[in-house]
């Protein structure tokens, strides 16, 4: 129901003039996403004299560990910016073929997150492959834990048959969703660690998008942040 409302809103909301001075793009005032079953409008702060305050106005943190991250997190993983994230929210997130992952630890998540995100801390990806928490969260990404797989099956899959290119001994990534992974921004190593963890589990690199700007870039553009419910 809420998705239908959102789809209608996406059509009518952009057509009608909202007359914002500070838009997302020349032809887009806002977008709406579902966050914890609430419809959230993402727009920018309209006060053109506003300057950022709070934790994300800070310029310097000790390095290491808060060092500047490379533009590319890993081979085959695409780095994206805000416009690609908006597009992802309107397409993959809406039709449930994609997930946006806030890879920060819960202490960060609780203080505010990008609407539409779910929290999967990077530490989860280093759990044992049989840990139910890892299985729960991988399931949310569309990956399934495999049972015992016979040697013959793996041999056939190794030849690229039976969808073998998207499977390994532990996981079936046939229905893996596209995932945008982000953390605090260009000085934060949490999402790169999450990406490494996912790749080690065998998650297809072409399904992973790295939003390097993260919360720092999101905040500096005055974009809407939500504080998750307890």
């Amino acid at each position, binding site marked *: 129901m809420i998705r239908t409302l959102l789809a209608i809103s996406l059509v009518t909301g952009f057509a009608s003039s909202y007359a914002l001075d500070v838009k997302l793009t020349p032809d887009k005032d806002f977008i709406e996403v579902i966050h914890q079953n609430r419809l959230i409008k993402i727009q920018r702060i309209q006060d053109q004299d506003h300057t950022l305050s709070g934790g994300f106005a800070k310029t310097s943190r000790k390095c290491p560990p808060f060092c500047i991250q490379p533009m590319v997190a890993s081979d085959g993983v695409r780095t994206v910016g805000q416009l690609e994230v908006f597009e992802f929210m309107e397409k993959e997130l809406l039709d449930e073929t994609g997930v946006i992952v806030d890879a*920060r630890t819960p202490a960060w998540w609780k203080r505010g997150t990008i609407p539409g995100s779910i929290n999967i801390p990077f530490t989860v990806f280093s759990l044992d492959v049989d840990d139910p928490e890892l299985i729960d969260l991988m399931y949310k990404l569309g990956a399934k834990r495999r049972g015992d797989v016979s040697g013959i099956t793996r041999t056939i899959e190794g030849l690229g048959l039976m969808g073998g290119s998207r499977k390994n001994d532990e996981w079936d990534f046939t229905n893996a969703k596209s995932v945008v992974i982000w953390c605090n921004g260009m000085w934060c190593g949490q999402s790169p660690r999450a990406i490494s963890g996912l790749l080690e589990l065998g998650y297809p690199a072409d399904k992973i998008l790295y939003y390097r700007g993260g919360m720092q870039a999101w905040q500096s553009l005055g974009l809407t942040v939500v504080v998750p419910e307890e």
Partner: protein
Amino acid sequence: MRKGCRLCVFNILISTCAASSWAQSNADYLESISSEAKSLVIDTETRSISETTAQKTVVQSASSNEGEIQTGAIMELVPGLSVDEFEILLKNNYMGSYLFYRGLDDNGRQETYDYYLQNPDPAKLRQKILQIKKQ
């Protein structure tokens, strides 16, 4: 001690030190991000926009039925679900926990459900299921 054996012991020592150093650096990293998060304050202007326009539709406690769980209107482990609703919600949203839960005998499942009624928290429930499974 033979030369080959000494080399073997040396390799084990090096590996142990490397693993311990890796674990230490990981712990240091977690400590650093945790202390940085404690002092974090979000710019209030960005926070307030959504909260005034948000249309709240979530059902906080389950006075509801299986339909809302099936359609995804309820995705969190809300309090007060019936056994059937609890199992459907677990299956739809916590597959790992569900797989372990499914492997329990009737008593184990009942104990899990009773525990959920007192503690509707996914992390605690997960630990409880593992604990029952090990018994």
